[in-house]
Protein backbone atom coordinates (compact mmCIF):
# COMPACT_ATOMS: atom_id res chain seq x y z
CA UNK A 1 0.00 0.00 0.00
CA UNK A 2 1.49 3.36 -0.93
CA UNK A 3 1.17 6.51 1.12
CA UNK A 4 -1.63 8.00 -1.02
CA UNK A 5 -3.78 4.88 -0.72
CA UNK A 6 -3.03 4.70 2.99
CA UNK A 7 -4.30 8.24 3.44
CA UNK A 8 -7.55 7.40 1.62
CA UNK A 9 -7.99 4.28 3.74
CA UNK A 10 -7.37 6.37 6.86
CA UNK A 11 -9.99 8.83 5.70
CA UNK A 12 -12.41 5.90 5.22
CA UNK A 13 -11.69 4.65 8.73
CA UNK A 14 -12.11 8.14 10.16
CA UNK A 15 -15.45 8.60 8.39
CA UNK A 16 -16.60 5.19 9.66
CA UNK A 17 -15.83 6.20 13.25
CA UNK A 18 -17.44 9.60 12.63
CA UNK A 19 -20.69 8.01 11.45
CA UNK A 20 -20.80 5.60 14.39
CA UNK A 21 -20.16 8.47 16.82
CA UNK A 22 -23.83 9.40 16.24
CA UNK A 23 -24.74 6.46 18.48
CA UNK A 24 -23.36 8.56 21.34
CA UNK A 25 -24.99 11.82 20.20
CA UNK A 26 -25.16 14.22 17.29
CA UNK A 27 -21.73 15.86 16.88
CA UNK A 28 -19.56 17.77 14.36
CA UNK A 29 -17.72 14.62 13.18
CA UNK A 30 -21.00 12.97 12.30
CA UNK A 31 -22.19 16.13 10.57
CA UNK A 32 -19.02 16.27 8.41
CA UNK A 33 -19.44 12.62 7.37
CA UNK A 34 -23.16 13.02 6.72
CA UNK A 35 -22.71 16.08 4.50
CA UNK A 36 -19.87 14.40 2.66
CA UNK A 37 -22.01 11.34 1.87
CA UNK A 38 -24.85 13.48 0.50
CA UNK A 39 -22.51 15.70 -1.53
CA UNK A 40 -20.42 12.88 -2.98
CA UNK A 41 -23.52 10.81 -3.84
CA UNK A 42 -25.17 13.73 -5.65
CA UNK A 43 -21.98 14.58 -7.55
CA UNK A 44 -21.32 10.95 -8.47
CA UNK A 45 -24.91 10.49 -9.63
CA UNK A 46 -24.76 13.60 -11.83
CA UNK A 47 -21.59 12.36 -13.57
CA UNK A 48 -22.95 8.81 -13.98
CA UNK A 49 -26.20 10.17 -15.42
CA UNK A 50 -24.30 12.28 -17.94
CA UNK A 51 -22.02 9.46 -19.09
CA UNK A 52 -24.70 6.73 -19.14
CA UNK A 53 -27.85 8.67 -19.99
CA UNK A 54 -27.65 12.07 -21.60
CA UNK A 55 -24.41 11.65 -23.51
CA UNK A 56 -24.97 8.21 -25.18
CA UNK A 57 -28.75 8.44 -25.48
CA UNK A 58 -29.03 11.99 -26.75
CA UNK A 59 -25.86 13.85 -27.72
CA UNK A 60 -24.03 10.91 -29.31
CA UNK A 61 -27.12 10.11 -31.39
CA UNK A 62 -27.23 13.69 -32.63
CA UNK A 63 -23.48 14.13 -32.99
CA UNK A 64 -23.43 14.00 -36.80
CA UNK A 65 -25.37 17.28 -36.79
CA UNK A 66 -24.19 20.76 -35.93
CA UNK A 67 -25.03 22.18 -32.54
CA UNK A 68 -25.37 25.70 -33.99
CA UNK A 69 -28.18 24.37 -36.22
CA UNK A 70 -29.63 22.89 -33.03
CA UNK A 71 -28.81 19.46 -34.51
CA UNK A 72 -31.68 19.82 -36.99
CA UNK A 73 -29.29 18.64 -39.72
CA UNK A 74 -28.51 15.39 -37.85
CA UNK A 75 -29.43 12.04 -39.47
CA UNK A 76 -31.52 11.28 -36.37
CA UNK A 77 -33.23 14.62 -35.62
CA UNK A 78 -36.21 12.90 -33.95
CA UNK A 79 -34.04 12.53 -30.83
CA UNK A 80 -34.72 16.24 -30.33
CA UNK A 81 -38.32 15.36 -29.33
CA UNK A 82 -37.36 13.71 -26.00
CA UNK A 83 -34.81 16.52 -25.52
CA UNK A 84 -37.55 19.13 -25.86
CA UNK A 85 -39.83 17.12 -23.55
CA UNK A 86 -37.00 16.98 -21.02
CA UNK A 87 -36.45 20.74 -21.20
CA UNK A 88 -40.20 21.28 -20.76
CA UNK A 89 -39.91 19.57 -17.36
CA UNK A 90 -37.76 22.45 -16.11
CA UNK A 91 -40.59 24.96 -16.62
CA UNK A 92 -41.76 23.88 -13.16
CA UNK A 93 -39.32 26.45 -11.78
CA UNK A 94 -41.47 29.27 -13.22
CA UNK A 95 -44.92 29.93 -11.77
CA UNK A 96 -46.08 31.37 -15.08
CA UNK A 97 -44.89 28.47 -17.26
CA UNK A 98 -45.25 25.57 -14.83
CA UNK A 99 -48.27 24.23 -16.74
CA UNK A 100 -45.98 23.35 -19.69
CA UNK A 101 -44.31 20.64 -17.57
CA UNK A 102 -47.63 18.80 -17.35
CA UNK A 103 -47.33 17.66 -20.97
CA UNK A 104 -44.13 15.62 -20.64
CA UNK A 105 -45.29 14.49 -17.20
CA UNK A 106 -48.61 13.26 -18.66
CA UNK A 107 -46.79 11.41 -21.43
CA UNK A 108 -44.37 9.82 -18.98
CA UNK A 109 -47.08 8.74 -16.52
CA UNK A 110 -49.28 7.47 -19.36
CA UNK A 111 -46.54 5.26 -20.81
CA UNK A 112 -45.42 4.04 -17.37
CA UNK A 113 -48.99 3.18 -16.36
CA UNK A 114 -49.67 1.39 -19.62
CA UNK A 115 -46.56 -0.72 -19.23
CA UNK A 116 -46.91 -1.31 -15.51
CA UNK A 117 -50.57 -2.21 -14.92
CA UNK A 118 -50.84 -5.46 -16.94
CA UNK A 119 -47.40 -6.69 -15.88
CA UNK A 120 -47.80 -5.77 -12.21
CA UNK A 121 -51.27 -7.34 -12.07
CA UNK A 122 -49.98 -10.49 -13.71
CA UNK A 123 -46.87 -10.90 -11.58
CA UNK A 124 -47.92 -9.63 -8.19
CA UNK A 125 -51.64 -10.42 -8.04
CA UNK A 126 -52.67 -13.13 -10.49
CA UNK A 127 -49.60 -15.35 -10.15
CA UNK A 128 -49.83 -15.13 -6.35
CA UNK A 129 -53.53 -16.02 -6.42
CA UNK A 130 -52.93 -18.96 -8.75
CA UNK A 131 -50.13 -20.19 -6.49
CA UNK A 132 -52.56 -20.42 -3.57
CA UNK A 133 -55.51 -21.76 -5.58
CA UNK A 134 -53.58 -24.37 -7.54
CA UNK A 135 -51.70 -25.62 -4.50
CA UNK A 136 -52.51 -29.23 -3.67
CA UNK A 137 -51.18 -30.75 -0.46
CA UNK A 138 -48.34 -33.16 -1.11
CA UNK A 139 -49.35 -36.02 1.22
CA UNK A 140 -46.54 -38.29 0.01
CA UNK A 141 -43.94 -35.75 1.19
CA UNK A 142 -45.95 -34.32 4.07
CA UNK A 143 -43.14 -33.83 6.61
CA UNK A 144 -40.47 -32.84 4.07
CA UNK A 145 -37.18 -34.34 2.99
CA UNK A 146 -35.43 -36.22 5.77
CA UNK A 147 -38.41 -36.89 8.07
CA UNK A 148 -39.46 -33.58 9.62
CA UNK A 149 -38.13 -30.58 7.74
CA UNK A 150 -40.07 -27.35 8.18
CA UNK A 151 -37.57 -25.59 5.91
CA UNK A 152 -38.66 -27.74 2.96
CA UNK A 153 -41.08 -25.40 1.17
CA UNK A 154 -42.22 -28.25 -1.09
CA UNK A 155 -43.42 -30.41 1.83
CA UNK A 156 -47.15 -30.95 2.36
CA UNK A 157 -46.98 -29.41 5.84
CA UNK A 158 -45.40 -26.20 4.49
CA UNK A 159 -48.07 -26.00 1.80
CA UNK A 160 -50.80 -26.52 4.37
CA UNK A 161 -49.35 -23.81 6.65
CA UNK A 162 -49.13 -21.37 3.71
CA UNK A 163 -52.72 -22.10 2.62
CA UNK A 164 -54.27 -21.89 6.09
CA UNK A 165 -52.09 -18.88 7.01
CA UNK A 166 -53.01 -16.96 3.85
CA UNK A 167 -56.74 -17.60 4.40
CA UNK A 168 -56.58 -16.59 8.08
CA UNK A 169 -54.60 -13.41 7.32
CA UNK A 170 -57.10 -12.45 4.60
CA UNK A 171 -60.00 -13.04 7.00
CA UNK A 172 -58.40 -10.65 9.50
CA UNK A 173 -58.70 -7.88 6.87
CA UNK A 174 -62.37 -8.68 6.20
CA UNK A 175 -64.25 -6.00 8.14
CA UNK A 176 -67.80 -6.44 6.82
CA UNK A 177 -68.54 -9.09 9.45
CA UNK A 178 -67.98 -8.78 13.17
CA UNK A 179 -64.92 -10.69 14.38
CA UNK A 180 -66.73 -13.09 16.76
CA UNK A 181 -67.09 -16.88 17.07
CA UNK A 182 -65.25 -19.09 14.59
CA UNK A 183 -64.76 -16.11 12.28
CA UNK A 184 -63.17 -14.12 15.12
CA UNK A 185 -60.95 -17.03 16.13
CA UNK A 186 -59.72 -17.40 12.53
CA UNK A 187 -59.05 -13.65 12.37
CA UNK A 188 -57.08 -13.93 15.61
CA UNK A 189 -55.05 -16.78 14.11
CA UNK A 190 -54.53 -14.47 11.12
CA UNK A 191 -53.01 -11.84 13.45
CA UNK A 192 -50.61 -14.45 14.79
CA UNK A 193 -49.59 -15.36 11.26
CA UNK A 194 -49.00 -11.67 10.48
CA UNK A 195 -47.00 -11.25 13.70
CA UNK A 196 -44.81 -14.22 12.77
CA UNK A 197 -44.25 -12.59 9.38
CA UNK A 198 -43.28 -9.27 11.00
CA UNK A 199 -41.04 -11.16 13.44
CA UNK A 200 -39.20 -12.81 10.54
CA UNK A 201 -38.76 -9.40 8.92
CA UNK A 202 -37.48 -7.95 12.21
CA UNK A 203 -35.00 -10.80 12.63
CA UNK A 204 -33.66 -10.30 9.12
CA UNK A 205 -33.48 -6.52 9.72
CA UNK A 206 -31.39 -7.03 12.87
CA UNK A 207 -29.09 -9.30 10.87
CA UNK A 208 -28.84 -6.65 8.14
CA UNK A 209 -27.91 -3.86 10.56
CA UNK A 210 -25.32 -6.00 12.32
CA UNK A 211 -23.92 -6.97 8.90
CA UNK A 212 -23.23 -3.30 8.17
CA UNK A 213 -21.29 -3.00 11.41
CA UNK A 214 -19.41 -6.24 10.73
CA UNK A 215 -18.35 -4.92 7.34
CA UNK A 216 -16.98 -1.77 8.95
CA UNK A 217 -15.04 -3.80 11.56
CA UNK A 218 -13.60 -5.91 8.74
CA UNK A 219 -12.67 -2.77 6.80
CA UNK A 220 -10.99 -1.10 9.77
CA UNK A 221 -9.05 -4.26 10.61
CA UNK A 222 -8.20 -5.69 7.17
CA UNK A 223 -7.81 -2.54 5.11
CA UNK A 224 -6.62 -0.01 7.64
CA UNK A 225 -5.12 -1.41 10.83
CA UNK A 226 -3.33 -4.44 9.41
CA UNK A 227 -1.95 -2.56 6.42
CA UNK A 228 -1.48 0.79 8.11
CA UNK A 229 0.34 -0.57 11.13
CA UNK A 230 2.27 -3.02 8.97
CA UNK A 231 1.04 -6.05 10.87
CA UNK A 232 -0.61 -7.65 7.84
CA UNK A 233 0.68 -10.46 5.68
CA UNK A 234 1.70 -8.11 2.88
CA UNK A 235 4.35 -5.58 3.89
CA UNK A 236 3.77 -2.01 2.80
CA UNK A 237 6.11 -0.57 0.22
CA UNK A 238 7.97 2.40 1.61
CA UNK A 239 6.34 2.00 5.02
CA UNK A 240 7.74 4.04 7.87
CA UNK A 241 6.66 4.48 11.48
CA UNK A 242 5.26 7.95 10.72
CA UNK A 243 2.14 6.34 9.24
CA UNK A 244 1.21 5.00 12.67
CA UNK A 245 1.31 8.57 13.99
CA UNK A 246 -1.60 9.47 11.67
CA UNK A 247 -3.60 6.55 13.01
CA UNK A 248 -3.05 7.49 16.67
CA UNK A 249 -3.78 11.13 15.88
CA UNK A 250 -7.20 10.22 14.48
CA UNK A 251 -7.94 7.96 17.45
CA UNK A 252 -6.86 10.73 19.86
CA UNK A 253 -9.10 13.32 18.21
CA UNK A 254 -12.19 11.09 18.38
CA UNK A 255 -11.51 9.79 21.91
CA UNK A 256 -10.65 13.31 23.12
CA UNK A 257 -13.90 14.64 21.76
CA UNK A 258 -15.93 11.90 23.45
CA UNK A 259 -14.16 12.50 26.81
CA UNK A 260 -14.82 16.24 26.53
CA UNK A 261 -18.51 15.54 25.85
CA UNK A 262 -18.74 13.21 28.84
CA UNK A 263 -17.09 15.83 31.10
CA UNK A 264 -19.52 18.51 29.89
CA UNK A 265 -22.43 16.17 30.51
CA UNK A 266 -21.26 15.34 34.05
CA UNK A 267 -20.75 19.04 34.86
CA UNK A 268 -24.27 19.90 33.66
CA UNK A 269 -25.66 17.04 35.73
CA UNK A 270 -23.75 18.27 38.80
CA UNK A 271 -25.09 21.80 38.38
CA UNK A 272 -28.69 20.64 37.93
CA UNK A 273 -28.36 18.43 41.06
Amino acid at each position, binding site marked *: MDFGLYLWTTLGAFLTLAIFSFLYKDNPFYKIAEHLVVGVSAGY*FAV*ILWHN*GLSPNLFQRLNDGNWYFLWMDSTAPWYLIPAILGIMMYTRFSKKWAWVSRWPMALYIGIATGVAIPLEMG*ARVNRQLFAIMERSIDWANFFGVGGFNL*LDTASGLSQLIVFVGAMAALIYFFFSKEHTGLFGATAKFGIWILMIGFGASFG*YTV*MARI*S*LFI*NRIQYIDNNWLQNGLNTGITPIEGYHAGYAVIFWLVVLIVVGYIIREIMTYLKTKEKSA
Partner: protein
Amino acid sequence: MDLFEKLMKLDRRWIFLFLIVVCVLSYAIDFYVPILVEPESQKIYDYVENLEEGSIVLIAIDYDPNNMAELHPMTYAMVEHCWRKKVKVIFTSLSQNGPGMADQAIRDISDSLALDRTYNGVEFKGREIVNGVDYCFLGYKPYYALVILAMGQDFRLPFPSDYYGNPLDSLPMMVGTHNYGDVDLVVDVSGGNITDAWISYGQSRFNFTLALGLTGVMTAQYYPYLGSGQVHGIMGGLLGAAQYEQMCDNAGLAIDGMRIQLAAHVVIIFFIVMGNIGLLLERRRLKREGGI
Protein backbone atom coordinates in the same frame (compact mmCIF):
# COMPACT_ATOMS: atom_id res chain seq x y z
CA MET B 1 -34.90 -0.10 42.43
CA ASP B 2 -34.49 -3.73 41.31
CA LEU B 3 -32.42 -5.02 38.39
CA PHE B 4 -35.29 -5.01 35.89
CA GLU B 5 -36.32 -1.49 36.83
CA LYS B 6 -32.73 -0.36 36.33
CA LEU B 7 -32.62 -2.12 32.95
CA MET B 8 -35.85 -0.42 31.89
CA LYS B 9 -34.32 2.96 32.64
CA LEU B 10 -30.93 2.13 31.11
CA ASP B 11 -29.57 4.72 28.67
CA ARG B 12 -29.66 3.12 25.22
CA ARG B 13 -26.05 4.19 24.66
CA TRP B 14 -24.90 1.57 27.17
CA ILE B 15 -26.60 -1.07 25.05
CA PHE B 16 -24.83 0.25 21.93
CA LEU B 17 -21.51 0.20 23.75
CA PHE B 18 -22.11 -3.33 25.03
CA LEU B 19 -23.03 -4.49 21.53
CA ILE B 20 -19.91 -2.85 20.04
CA VAL B 21 -17.67 -4.52 22.64
CA VAL B 22 -19.29 -7.93 22.02
CA CYS B 23 -18.96 -7.53 18.24
CA VAL B 24 -15.31 -6.48 18.39
CA LEU B 25 -14.44 -9.25 20.84
CA SER B 26 -16.16 -11.93 18.77
CA TYR B 27 -14.31 -10.62 15.72
CA ALA B 28 -10.98 -10.79 17.55
CA ILE B 29 -11.57 -14.30 18.93
CA ASP B 30 -11.75 -16.84 16.13
CA PHE B 31 -14.28 -19.61 16.85
CA TYR B 32 -16.22 -21.97 14.61
CA VAL B 33 -19.88 -21.33 13.85
CA PRO B 34 -21.76 -24.05 11.93
CA ILE B 35 -23.74 -22.72 8.97
CA LEU B 36 -26.98 -24.46 8.05
CA VAL B 37 -27.58 -24.29 4.30
CA GLU B 38 -31.22 -23.54 3.52
CA PRO B 39 -32.96 -25.10 0.49
CA GLU B 40 -33.57 -21.73 -1.19
CA SER B 41 -29.81 -21.00 -1.34
CA GLN B 42 -28.99 -24.61 -2.18
CA LYS B 43 -31.27 -24.43 -5.24
CA ILE B 44 -29.26 -21.53 -6.70
CA TYR B 45 -25.96 -23.31 -6.08
CA ASP B 46 -27.25 -26.56 -7.60
CA TYR B 47 -28.55 -24.73 -10.65
CA VAL B 48 -25.17 -23.09 -11.32
CA GLU B 49 -23.34 -26.34 -10.49
CA ASN B 50 -25.36 -28.20 -13.12
CA LEU B 51 -24.79 -25.63 -15.88
CA GLU B 52 -22.62 -26.78 -18.74
CA GLU B 53 -19.36 -25.10 -19.70
CA GLY B 54 -20.07 -22.09 -21.93
CA SER B 55 -23.53 -21.43 -20.48
CA ILE B 56 -24.39 -17.81 -19.76
CA VAL B 57 -25.55 -16.29 -16.47
CA LEU B 58 -26.71 -12.68 -16.22
CA ILE B 59 -25.85 -11.10 -12.88
CA ALA B 60 -27.43 -7.73 -12.11
CA ILE B 61 -25.44 -5.78 -9.52
CA ASP B 62 -28.34 -3.59 -8.41
CA TYR B 63 -27.04 -2.23 -5.15
CA ASP B 64 -25.28 0.81 -3.77
CA PRO B 65 -22.28 0.94 -1.40
CA ASN B 66 -24.66 1.07 1.58
CA ASN B 67 -25.68 -2.54 0.83
CA MET B 68 -22.18 -3.68 0.02
CA ALA B 69 -21.71 -5.38 3.40
CA GLU B 70 -24.34 -8.00 2.69
CA LEU B 71 -24.40 -8.22 -1.08
CA HIS B 72 -20.78 -7.93 -2.18
CA PRO B 73 -19.81 -11.30 -0.60
CA MET B 74 -22.75 -12.87 -2.46
CA THR B 75 -21.55 -11.44 -5.78
CA TYR B 76 -17.98 -12.57 -5.14
CA ALA B 77 -18.99 -16.14 -4.21
CA MET B 78 -21.41 -16.51 -7.09
CA VAL B 79 -19.22 -15.03 -9.83
CA GLU B 80 -16.22 -17.06 -8.70
CA HIS B 81 -18.39 -20.19 -8.77
CA CYS B 82 -19.53 -19.40 -12.33
CA TRP B 83 -16.03 -18.73 -13.63
CA ARG B 84 -14.65 -21.86 -11.99
CA LYS B 85 -17.32 -23.79 -13.90
CA LYS B 86 -16.30 -21.86 -17.06
CA VAL B 87 -19.78 -20.36 -17.19
CA LYS B 88 -19.82 -16.96 -18.91
CA VAL B 89 -21.25 -13.99 -17.07
CA ILE B 90 -23.05 -10.90 -18.34
CA PHE B 91 -22.96 -8.15 -15.72
CA THR B 92 -25.28 -5.25 -15.60
CA SER B 93 -25.91 -2.61 -12.97
CA LEU B 94 -29.26 -0.87 -12.82
CA SER B 95 -28.38 1.03 -9.67
CA GLN B 96 -26.50 4.27 -10.36
CA ASN B 97 -23.77 3.65 -7.77
CA GLY B 98 -23.30 0.02 -8.80
CA PRO B 99 -20.91 0.13 -11.81
CA GLY B 100 -17.84 1.05 -9.76
CA MET B 101 -18.42 -1.81 -7.35
CA ALA B 102 -19.13 -4.25 -10.17
CA ASP B 103 -15.88 -3.25 -11.87
CA GLN B 104 -13.99 -3.71 -8.59
CA ALA B 105 -15.57 -7.15 -8.06
CA ILE B 106 -14.65 -8.26 -11.60
CA ARG B 107 -11.01 -7.22 -11.11
CA ASP B 108 -10.72 -8.81 -7.65
CA ILE B 109 -12.28 -12.12 -8.70
CA SER B 110 -10.20 -12.24 -11.91
CA ASP B 111 -7.07 -11.86 -9.75
CA SER B 112 -8.09 -14.61 -7.33
CA LEU B 113 -8.84 -17.01 -10.21
CA ALA B 114 -5.34 -16.59 -11.58
CA LEU B 115 -4.10 -18.84 -8.74
CA ASP B 116 -4.32 -22.65 -8.56
CA ARG B 117 -6.76 -23.62 -5.79
CA THR B 118 -8.79 -26.53 -4.50
CA TYR B 119 -12.50 -26.22 -3.81
CA ASN B 120 -14.61 -29.07 -2.42
CA GLY B 121 -11.71 -31.43 -3.10
CA VAL B 122 -11.51 -30.48 -6.79
CA GLU B 123 -8.37 -28.82 -8.05
CA PHE B 124 -8.79 -25.76 -10.24
CA LYS B 125 -6.00 -24.53 -12.45
CA GLY B 126 -5.55 -20.79 -12.33
CA ARG B 127 -6.54 -19.06 -15.55
CA GLU B 128 -6.86 -15.60 -16.98
CA ILE B 129 -10.37 -14.16 -17.07
CA VAL B 130 -10.82 -12.31 -20.35
CA ASN B 131 -13.27 -9.50 -21.05
CA GLY B 132 -15.53 -10.45 -23.92
CA VAL B 133 -14.76 -14.15 -23.56
CA ASP B 134 -15.56 -14.95 -19.93
CA TYR B 135 -17.63 -11.91 -19.17
CA CYS B 136 -19.27 -8.83 -20.57
CA PHE B 137 -20.02 -5.85 -18.35
CA LEU B 138 -22.89 -3.86 -19.80
CA GLY B 139 -22.76 -1.02 -17.27
CA TYR B 140 -25.54 1.26 -16.05
CA LYS B 141 -28.50 2.86 -17.76
CA PRO B 142 -31.18 4.91 -15.99
CA TYR B 143 -34.85 3.87 -15.67
CA TYR B 144 -34.39 0.24 -14.74
CA ALA B 145 -37.91 -0.95 -15.68
CA LEU B 146 -37.45 0.20 -19.29
CA VAL B 147 -33.93 -1.24 -19.42
CA ILE B 148 -35.20 -4.64 -18.20
CA LEU B 149 -37.92 -4.61 -20.87
CA ALA B 150 -35.50 -3.49 -23.58
CA MET B 151 -32.98 -6.23 -22.70
CA GLY B 152 -35.79 -8.72 -23.30
CA GLN B 153 -35.73 -7.67 -26.95
CA ASP B 154 -32.00 -7.23 -27.39
CA PHE B 155 -29.17 -6.34 -25.04
CA ARG B 156 -27.95 -3.98 -27.76
CA LEU B 157 -30.99 -1.71 -27.43
CA PRO B 158 -30.12 -0.23 -24.03
CA PHE B 159 -26.42 -1.14 -24.24
CA PRO B 160 -24.99 -0.73 -27.78
CA SER B 161 -21.53 -0.96 -26.20
CA ASP B 162 -20.20 -2.36 -22.93
CA TYR B 163 -19.03 -0.42 -19.85
CA TYR B 164 -15.54 -0.06 -21.34
CA GLY B 165 -16.85 1.32 -24.65
CA ASN B 166 -16.49 -1.84 -26.80
CA PRO B 167 -19.41 -2.45 -29.19
CA LEU B 168 -21.27 -5.60 -28.04
CA ASP B 169 -20.88 -7.27 -31.43
CA SER B 170 -17.10 -7.04 -31.11
CA LEU B 171 -17.17 -9.27 -27.99
CA PRO B 172 -16.95 -13.01 -28.85
CA MET B 173 -19.36 -14.14 -26.10
CA MET B 174 -22.03 -11.68 -27.23
CA VAL B 175 -22.08 -12.96 -30.83
CA GLY B 176 -25.42 -14.79 -31.02
CA THR B 177 -26.40 -13.63 -27.54
CA HIS B 178 -29.31 -11.29 -27.98
CA ASN B 179 -31.73 -11.43 -25.07
CA TYR B 180 -32.89 -13.40 -22.01
CA GLY B 181 -33.68 -16.34 -24.30
CA ASP B 182 -29.93 -16.88 -24.76
CA VAL B 183 -29.22 -16.72 -21.05
CA ASP B 184 -29.50 -19.75 -18.73
CA LEU B 185 -30.03 -17.93 -15.46
CA VAL B 186 -30.68 -14.35 -14.34
CA VAL B 187 -29.50 -13.41 -10.84
CA ASP B 188 -30.56 -10.11 -9.33
CA VAL B 189 -28.36 -9.08 -6.42
CA SER B 190 -30.31 -6.16 -5.11
CA GLY B 191 -30.72 -3.78 -2.22
CA GLY B 192 -33.86 -1.98 -3.37
CA ASN B 193 -37.09 -2.18 -5.32
CA ILE B 194 -35.32 -3.01 -8.61
CA THR B 195 -36.08 -6.61 -7.63
CA ASP B 196 -39.80 -5.90 -8.08
CA ALA B 197 -39.08 -4.74 -11.62
CA TRP B 198 -37.06 -7.90 -12.36
CA ILE B 199 -40.05 -9.99 -11.23
CA SER B 200 -42.80 -7.92 -12.87
CA TYR B 201 -41.14 -6.63 -16.05
CA GLY B 202 -38.54 -9.35 -16.47
CA GLN B 203 -39.53 -12.79 -15.22
CA SER B 204 -43.29 -12.54 -15.73
CA ARG B 205 -42.91 -10.98 -19.20
CA PHE B 206 -40.05 -13.12 -20.57
CA ASN B 207 -40.38 -16.20 -18.33
CA PHE B 208 -36.68 -16.77 -17.56
CA THR B 209 -35.23 -18.49 -14.49
CA LEU B 210 -34.68 -15.82 -11.86
CA ALA B 211 -32.68 -16.13 -8.64
CA LEU B 212 -32.39 -13.38 -6.04
CA GLY B 213 -29.66 -12.19 -3.72
CA LEU B 214 -31.26 -9.79 -1.26
CA THR B 215 -30.45 -7.69 1.77
CA GLY B 216 -31.78 -9.02 5.08
CA VAL B 217 -34.37 -6.25 5.31
CA MET B 218 -35.94 -7.31 2.00
CA THR B 219 -35.71 -11.09 2.21
CA ALA B 220 -38.93 -11.97 4.06
CA GLN B 221 -41.08 -10.00 1.65
CA TYR B 222 -39.87 -12.00 -1.38
CA TYR B 223 -40.63 -15.50 -0.05
CA PRO B 224 -44.13 -15.54 -1.62
CA TYR B 225 -42.46 -15.38 -5.06
CA LEU B 226 -40.43 -18.44 -4.14
CA GLY B 227 -43.60 -20.32 -3.23
CA SER B 228 -45.33 -19.32 -6.46
CA GLY B 229 -42.38 -20.48 -8.56
CA GLN B 230 -41.64 -17.02 -9.97
CA VAL B 231 -38.28 -17.06 -8.23
CA HIS B 232 -36.01 -20.10 -8.36
CA GLY B 233 -34.00 -19.40 -5.19
CA ILE B 234 -33.18 -16.69 -2.66
CA MET B 235 -30.00 -15.80 -0.83
CA GLY B 236 -30.98 -13.65 2.14
CA GLY B 237 -28.55 -11.20 3.72
CA LEU B 238 -25.13 -12.05 5.05
CA LEU B 239 -26.39 -15.51 6.05
CA GLY B 240 -27.32 -16.25 2.42
CA ALA B 241 -23.86 -15.13 1.32
CA ALA B 242 -22.23 -17.29 4.00
CA GLN B 243 -24.28 -20.30 2.88
CA TYR B 244 -23.17 -19.80 -0.72
CA GLU B 245 -19.55 -19.39 0.35
CA GLN B 246 -19.83 -22.62 2.35
CA MET B 247 -21.35 -24.58 -0.55
CA CYS B 248 -18.57 -23.28 -2.84
CA ASP B 249 -15.92 -24.12 -0.20
CA ASN B 250 -14.71 -20.55 -0.62
CA ALA B 251 -14.75 -18.90 2.79
CA GLY B 252 -14.81 -15.11 2.55
CA LEU B 253 -16.06 -12.07 4.41
CA ALA B 254 -19.55 -13.54 4.94
CA ILE B 255 -18.41 -16.68 6.78
CA ASP B 256 -15.93 -14.50 8.70
CA GLY B 257 -18.85 -12.35 9.87
CA MET B 258 -21.11 -15.15 11.06
CA ARG B 259 -19.53 -15.54 14.50
CA ILE B 260 -20.10 -11.80 15.10
CA GLN B 261 -23.71 -12.24 13.95
CA LEU B 262 -24.14 -15.07 16.44
CA ALA B 263 -22.73 -13.07 19.36
CA ALA B 264 -24.69 -9.92 18.43
CA HIS B 265 -27.95 -11.87 18.11
CA VAL B 266 -27.43 -13.47 21.51
CA VAL B 267 -26.95 -9.98 23.03
CA ILE B 268 -30.02 -8.58 21.26
CA ILE B 269 -32.21 -11.55 22.24
CA PHE B 270 -30.97 -11.17 25.83
CA PHE B 271 -31.95 -7.49 25.90
CA ILE B 272 -35.34 -8.18 24.25
CA VAL B 273 -36.13 -10.88 26.84
CA MET B 274 -34.96 -8.69 29.74
CA GLY B 275 -36.89 -5.71 28.38
CA ASN B 276 -40.09 -7.75 28.09
CA ILE B 277 -39.72 -9.21 31.59
CA GLY B 278 -39.12 -5.68 32.90
CA LEU B 279 -42.19 -4.41 31.07
CA LEU B 280 -44.39 -7.19 32.49
CA LEU B 281 -43.10 -6.60 36.02
CA GLU B 282 -43.65 -2.85 35.65
CA ARG B 283 -47.21 -3.46 34.48
CA ARG B 284 -47.87 -5.81 37.40
CA ARG B 285 -46.49 -3.23 39.85
CA LEU B 286 -48.63 -0.46 38.34
CA LYS B 287 -51.69 -2.74 38.45
CA ARG B 288 -51.01 -3.49 42.11
CA GLU B 289 -50.68 0.22 42.82
CA GLY B 290 -53.86 0.89 40.89
CA GLY B 291 -52.06 2.79 38.13
CA ILE B 292 -53.75 0.84 35.30
